[in-house]
């Protein structure tokens, strides 16, 4: 089936992109910023994105004196002749054109490694034709649904599935961004479901608002299923900090988590510095205490009286006021219901064991939804898991046995800018994961509405960005850190709807693309619960699409 023709290339440069004059009869209204389109060159196909739309006139007088309302014929004729539209198009990938009639040429191409789309290195000549992408083109670039590829939605104006390479997605840390109200948690659920269904990684989800495990109410009525409901209790385990939650009807948890004072380290205090409103001196004092007292430093601090504080300060050159403040604040922490003086790590280790077994863990926070709780618990648990993981990895390096290789682990955190702001990023385990743990098969999925708060070095390590609508300039800047062709992507971001439209860019997609995300509904549940493995057979696809998107 031939591609639908949109126009011809009349101008362009490699860096700036191509200018395409739209054919008369093709309206700008049928195109969107960020649309995936194909330029058919002589030798190559160029997979490109629409980056701008412009209106032009061959004679300025038409603009000064446009045809009146009742001159329908005049307007119709002028469209595409005296007035016309151009589209700016940025090629991202190119692929050698081989027709099925030339099997030899195809084989040759394969030989020199030129088969399949590759990053673009040249531009087509004048009058190359711009076309709408067909299903095969999307499949060629983004892949078809299979063990690694997962359909996340469709282009804004066509009914063709766009797949994310989930294997590459989990290989690196990635981010789900968008201002509040853009449905980031739905997106997260979508992606997590895909990862779970295809078994590409084990997921540890720090569920601050109790959204991921069980049904939540949708805006506008109805319920959205949780991951445990979709995949079942044998696949998805739920832990909670809140024991009351464990007793809720129909929302069973597999364990209630307790944290011991002995599990809290000075590093955590650093992380919580802002939340606890501690001065940097106070934060530093925690370090001094830990040096002095080791694992029990917190308990020791809490037990100190004024005198003991003085003594300690004298010894260590710590600041008494700071120390007092620290003690005061940490007393609050100690009072949290889920904190006990002492706890063993076996619950956490159990979680880890579960994760290693290919299952998934959701940690709910119940009513403990203060940022303080979230950050503290997440940090402590993750630190523990990290250390275990590192040890495992080193063992694997020694034995080189496949079964010793730790599973890919992805940790999902919300309010990421709290964990990954420039101050915290250097000190906390999340910062470390973001920067280094990719090597050890541990990555983060950060969900955030304020990416400008995230440390830039960390940002640059974010492999795939799934971004909903953003309007804050600095947040847009942050999201586009380390990405080329910013003016277009910026425009694309600003043009997104607040719901169900995202821009995908980064490691898991060969080129940036705007996507209308698929619905998170009954059809979706069925699709993923069925294993999600769908080898893309063209005949099947139509039927499957019917099924998926109704």
């Amino acid at each position, binding site marked *: 089936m031939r591609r639908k023709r949109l126009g011809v290339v009349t101008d362009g440069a490699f860096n700036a992109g191509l200018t395409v004059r739209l054919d*008369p009869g093709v309206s700008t209204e049928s195109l969107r910023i960020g649309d995936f389109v194909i330029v058919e060159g002589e030798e190559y196909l160029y997979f490109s994105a629409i980056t701008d739309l412009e209106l032009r006139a*061959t004679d300025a*007088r038409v603009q000064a004196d446009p045809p009146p309302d009742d*001159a329908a*014929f*005049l307007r*119709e004729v002028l469209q*595409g*002749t*005296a007035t016309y539209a151009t589209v700016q198009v940025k090629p991202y990938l190119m692929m050698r054109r081989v027709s099925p009639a030339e099997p030899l040429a195809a084989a040759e191409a394969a030989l020199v490694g030129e088969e399949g789309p590759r990053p673009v290195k040249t531009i087509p000549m004048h009058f190359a034709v711009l076309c709408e992408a067909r299903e095969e083109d999307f499949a060629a670039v983004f892949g078809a649904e299979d063990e690694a590829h997962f359909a996340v939605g469709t282009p804004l104006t066509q009914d063709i599935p766009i797949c994310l390479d989930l294997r590459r997605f989990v290989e690196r840390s990635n981010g789900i961004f968008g201002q509040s109200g853009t449905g980031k948690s739905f997106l997260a659920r979508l992606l997590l479901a895909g990862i779970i269904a295809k078994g590409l990684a084990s997921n540890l989800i720090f569920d601050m608002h109790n959204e991921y495990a069980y049904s939540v109410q949708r805006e506008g009525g109805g319920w959205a299923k949780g991951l445990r409901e979709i995949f079942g209790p044998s696949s998805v385990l739920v832990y909670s900090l809140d024991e009351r939650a464990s007793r809720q009807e129909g929302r069973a948890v597999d364990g209630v988590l307790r944290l011991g004072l002995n599990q809290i380290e000075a590093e955590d205090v650093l992380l919580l510095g802002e939340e606890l409103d501690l001065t940097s001196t106070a934060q530093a004092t925690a370090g001094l205490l830990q040096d002095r007292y080791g694992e029990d430093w917190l308990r020791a601090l809490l037990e100190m009286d004024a005198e003991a504080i003085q003594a300690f300060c004298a010894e260590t050159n710590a600041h008494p006021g700071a120390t007092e403040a620290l003690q005061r604040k940490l007393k609050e922490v100690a009072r949290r219901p889920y904190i006990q003086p002492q706890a063993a790590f076996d619950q956490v280790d159990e979680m880890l064991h579960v994760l290693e077994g290919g299952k998934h863990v959701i940690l709910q926070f119940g009513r403990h939804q203060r940022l303080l709780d979230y950050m503290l618990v997440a940090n402590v648990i993750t630190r523990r898991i990290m250390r275990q993981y590192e040890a495992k990895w080193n063992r694997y390096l020694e034995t080189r046995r496949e079964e010793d290789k730790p599973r890919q682990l992805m940790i999902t955190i919300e309010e990421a800018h709290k964990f990954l702001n420039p101050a915290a990023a250097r000190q906390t385990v999340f910062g470390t994961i973001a920067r280094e743990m990719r090597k050890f098969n541990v990555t983060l999925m950060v969900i955030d509405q304020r990416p400008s708060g995230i440390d830039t070095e960390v940002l640059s390590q974010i492999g795939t960005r799934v971004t909903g609508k953003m309007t804050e300039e600095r947040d847009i800047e942050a999201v586009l850190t380390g990405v080329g062709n910013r003016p277009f992507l910026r425009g694309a971001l600003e043009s997104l709807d607040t719901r169900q439209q995202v821009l995908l860019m980064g490691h898991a997609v060969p080129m940036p693309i705007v996507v209308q995300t698929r619905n998170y509904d009954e059809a979706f549940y069925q699709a993923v619960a069925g294993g999600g493995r769908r080898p893309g057979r063209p005949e099947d696809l139509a039927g499957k699409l019917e099924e998926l998107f109704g």
Partner: protein
Amino acid sequence: MTRIGEIVATHSLGFVAESFTLHQPPALGSLVKAPLVAGGEALGVVCFGETVGLQPGRRALRRSDEAVYDSAIYQEHPELVHTIRTEFHAVLVGWQEGGAVRQVLPPQPPPLHYSVAVCTPQEVRAFTERLDYFRLLLAAETPLPSEQLLAAHIRRAYADRGRDDAWLRRAAREVARLLKEEYDRLVTVLSGIAPEGGN
């Protein structure tokens, strides 16, 4: 072939013919043909028509009154029809020979005193399939502004083609292309060819 006139002046760009029917030259913009000595026929578009005295220097006098006017004038003055003649001008836009049509100026103009005929609807349809000759029409130096001539021609061809809307749009776009930097002339043409009711 119904002869409608005889060539009384001819040159490379067009010809002048005297119409056999007084007062009725062929319609403005219609396609006419005249034989070429070397073979085939030259094709032209009627670009002007006039009725003038046979002898130079004779002017038309007002002859009507309350009782006698219009065609009655010619009854009243039977000598009048012998003192005037109707002429039309045509601008050459192509030539045809043995079924092949070419939209360029013929190598030689049609000969003096040869007959002119109106092209049949089939011939019009065949010729107007391609629109390259619009360029020749627009460039022609005629008493009529060439954009008005083009509009008249397109209207006639549209009618001869049985009100072919698809062709009309194709023609309109071609005109828009040719006059892309002359908006005022373009609007003159397009307003002149817009189908009734504006659409």
